């Protein structure tokens, strides 16, 4: 049974239709000791059937530690949102449920070609940042 209602699936399908380029979701998981990995995988698996532009690739944190490190991921479940040829440097740690699911969809649409919601002035300021910065946004599921 689907976790997303049929009407929400329709809305997502419509939104994904506007995507211009492919989006890859790297799903970081591990076999043991991850209570929410299965649920996260189930949520992610709902997306590719709604758009041929979305694909999921699984990365095992234990077996592919180097790859996880490359994406700055050291805990699971985690998701890295990648464009066709570039890394968006947007990550999700934890189950993308509730508001986080909306954020994940917005990230997918952004990487898929939707214009960023930032003003032109802010975009310029951010593009000029020449020091590595890490933002961690803490949220809760509801």
């Amino acid at each position: 049974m689907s976790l997303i209602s049929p009407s929400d699936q329709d809305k997502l399908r419509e939104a994904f239709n506007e995507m211009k380029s492919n989006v890859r979701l790297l799903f970081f998981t591990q076999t043991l000791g991850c209570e929410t990995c299965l649920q996260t995988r189930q949520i992610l698996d709902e997306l590719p059937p709604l758009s041929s532009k979305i694909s999921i690739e699984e990365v095992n944190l234990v077996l592919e530690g180097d790859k996880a490190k490359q994406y700055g991921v050291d805990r699971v479940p985690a998701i890295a949102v990648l464009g066709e040829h570039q890394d968006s440097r947007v990550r999700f740690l934890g189950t993308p449920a509730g508001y986080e699911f909306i954020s994940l969809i917005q990230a997918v649409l952004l990487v898929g070609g939707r214009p960023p919601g930032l003003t032109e002035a802010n975009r310029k300021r951010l593009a000029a940042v020449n020091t590595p910065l890490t933002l961690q946004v803490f949220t809760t599921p509801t």
Partner: protein
Amino acid sequence: MAFVSPNITAFAVEATEFPDLARKYQVSGVPKTVVAGNGVQVEILGALPQDAFVDQALSMLSAAPSEPEPQTKG
């Protein structure tokens, strides 16, 4: 922000699933954003209007003494 800046990486962290991170950054309310870089850390509490959020997120760059902003010659 990460999408438009190659030097920015953004993590959305589900606080209840990672209590160790929530404790480390003393998260008592959400959303809370911790911006780190250049040896400096700033915290942004709540959801702010875009300009204010960018101001705060980038405030550390001017505050950090080790790496002054490069001067552009006009």
